[in-house]
């Protein structure tokens, strides 16, 4: 799940600005439990709409943030994530012409990674109580060759009253989750999951609207052959 936790926050923040969104989360897991996370958000399909919204003071009664505020928010998140124990090499590449953002970091363990993300989110959101995740909550587990991802109930309010165009745009958008291992994959539980040709990676791909309506579509259990 990794960054499905980020997805509702990202989407919630962005949904007032755009509907067509592509999110890619890519995690590479090493034998010793450490790894690398890459989280990319691609809004280039909505850049005209985003630019027109950013030119406004408010939209549907809500204040439209300025670009500098969004930059600040992201820098603050990166700063706090970098401070977390077990997280290193946090890098954020931002392309404000195409509205494309790439976050990457290294971690020593999945537990550190999840705790780090939670802690960093709580630092940047206006009301930390909105991050309905306790220190004990975990959604990714990996032990004895079994990788499990479940989706927490984050109680993120959905945007009501979506226009037909917004729904269609969301359906054109996608959430892609890639998990890479150093051992070959034996099986996957999610029917939409695809195993790479080299058997070292699994991809789950779903449209953004389906994920918004039911994040559980990304749940997956992957069995790997750790003896090899």
């Amino acid at each position, binding site marked *: 799940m990794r960054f499905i936790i980020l997805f509702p926050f990202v989407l919630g923040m962005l949904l007032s600005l755009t509907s067509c969104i592509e999110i890619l989360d890519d995690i590479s897991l090493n034998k010793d439990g450490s790894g690398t996370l890459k989280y990319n958000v691609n809004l280039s399909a909505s*850049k005209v709409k985003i630019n027109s919204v950013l030119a406004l003071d408010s939209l549907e009664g809500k204040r439209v943030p300025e670009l500098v505020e969004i930059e600040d928010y992201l820098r603050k998140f990166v700063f706090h994530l970098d401070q977390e124990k077990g997280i290193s090499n946090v890098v954020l590449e931002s392309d404000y012409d195409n509205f494309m953002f790439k976050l990457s970091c290294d971690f020593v363990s999945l537990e550190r990674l999840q705790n780090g993300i939670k802690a960093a989110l709580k630092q940047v959101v206006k009301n930390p109580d909105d991050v309905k995740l306790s220190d004990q909550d975990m959604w990714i587990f990996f032990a004895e060759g079994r990788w499990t991802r479940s989706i927490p109930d984050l109680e993120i309010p959905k945007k009501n009253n979506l226009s037909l165009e917004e729904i269609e745009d969301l359906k054109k958008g996608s959430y892609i989750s890639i998990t890479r291992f150093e051992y070959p994959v034996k099986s996957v539980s999610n029917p939409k999951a695809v195993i790479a040709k080299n058997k070292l990676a699994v991809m789950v791909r779903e449209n953004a609207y389906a994920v918004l309506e039911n994040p559980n579509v990304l749940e997956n259990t992957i069995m790997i052959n750790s003896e090899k």
Partner: protein
Amino acid sequence: MTKRCLSRTIFGALLSAPFLLHPFQSKGQSELLIPSEAVAVFSINNFQLLQKISLDELIQYEFMNEIHQEIFDGSTNGRTIKDSGIDFKQKLNVFFGQNERFELAGFTFGINDQKALFEVFDDFDKQTDESEFVQHYRSYFNHLLIKGQAGLLIRVDPNESWVRKHTDSIWFSRGHDRIPGETDWDEAEEEILGEDADWSEDMDNEMFAIDDELSALEDGDESLILLSEEDLLQENYNDLKDSVFLAFQERYFQEVMVHLFLENKNLSGADPELAALLTHGSEAVFFMDNSRNVVNSSNFSQFRTLFPTLHRDLKELYKGNKVLGDLYLKDDQIEAKITTTYGDALGRIYAKMNNTKFDGKVTRYIHDESPMYFNYNVNLQEAYDQAYQLIIPLLKEQKNTRIATNVLVVEVLNEFLNKEAIFDTYKGSMFASYSGVKTVQVTQLEYTYDEDFNYEEKEVLMDQEIPIFTLGFSTERNDIPEMVLRQLAKMTSKCKKVKDYWVFEEAILNSLPIYIINQNDLFILTNDERLIVNTKGFGKNRLGRKKRKAIKKSGFLYAKSDWNAVMEGIPETMLSDKNREVFKVLKTQGGVMELKSSSTTTRKTDFTLTYTYEGKYENSGKYVLDVVNSLFVILK
């Protein structure tokens, strides 16, 4: 009656009163209760046409149910606006006024049944200060005054800045050295970061860290005690401010009442133009006295304090500046005739500015099918010359260093600058048009994956719908914008010349190009690609002869909008379900709006705004009510 109820009652009365008035109404007393402090009045007159809509028909509309609920505080018991005690044979006059010290708002109306009236105004209490001729009732800050067969509902509030000024004065006179709650942010920043701090990313990081420390200090620290003292101070200040507010409110209400009832000064008696307007046979009239509205407003309070003589002179300049209008509801048209009047000084400026020859070349760049366009034709140089002759002498009389410095700068610039070049480049005239929506292609980035899920970015094209617009300015110096564009082209590769026009890539919303046509005494910005095919204009597809004539005949200003055609171009998929329903109502009940002006004299300019709608309606009144009701049903 609550404040919300007051607003709703005003709205309901405004909407329904025109339809209820008898053609042979008596000369009402309600006009005589408009305070002389009012600067804007909207008066509903008798509608001969709309008497065709009976009261019984009106109260059938769904939106009237809500008004009835509000008026009778929820328990209508079958009662309607007919039972409110209001005399619909008299005019309903809504007014607003503001000066340096206070603002007032309310409305006057006729009364035919006081007992029924007080079932509506049931939360108003009788006051003991009534005179023999005037009854006074009050509910919180709203006052109801009844004289004869007419009533006045009014609220008078002192201006926030005026109250603040006096509160601060009292506060400091009591020995305090600052206003609670006000922080000097520069001082605070210097304290945290040090005097010579230069801002950098490291500073951001330090600020984030300090922010976290401050959050951590919130629980049971000494600073909590200091916050409490500050809170107490703030509370004392707020209490003082409230007392000042209430004292001024009472004082100014009394002032308005003395003028109105003891000195018999009302606006229709004081202003002959309003008095004349109130005798018109139109369905409604509106009046605004700009000479008191502009310079007496609270926005000018500091100016008034710092430059009292200049403020007085500006008042003199705006003397006679009023807006007067009539509203007519015809068979298939709603028409507003508006006159703006000026004093001699302003009139001379406007007359010179607005009476300029129409440039027919403009119409070549407006497509005949454009659903919306406007033209504005002025001579800025004439306006500048007149204004310079008028205002500089006024400013020179002021014995103030700041003004004297500014006057010196203006006079020197006036000598050194080539005004001809400036005003030949930007004459002041402009036009604009909207020509629907088009599909364009914009680039986006996509990820492509190989069989092992390694990915790379690829640029692809996608369709995007955007509005087509054209904006143009008159100029006699095409060479100057050309010079600027040539330099711009050297500075950025996004700007380049293509044949006889310029293109600026990604100028619109960082994504789409804008085309610049700089020739034939016009400087045009457009994203309409038809105009770059032939930069001389649309040729035979340009605005038709009848439409061109209409623009030419109009004075300095002309605008036209076919709302049905405008809305045709808007894709419904862009709208939410609710907005789509509203959109459908407006689409089927839309019409054509046209704004024309007369030539400007030194005394006045006339404007005519007409709205011609399509569809079968008995009369304009029924049309307006149907639209309002449709929107009410969707939006509730």
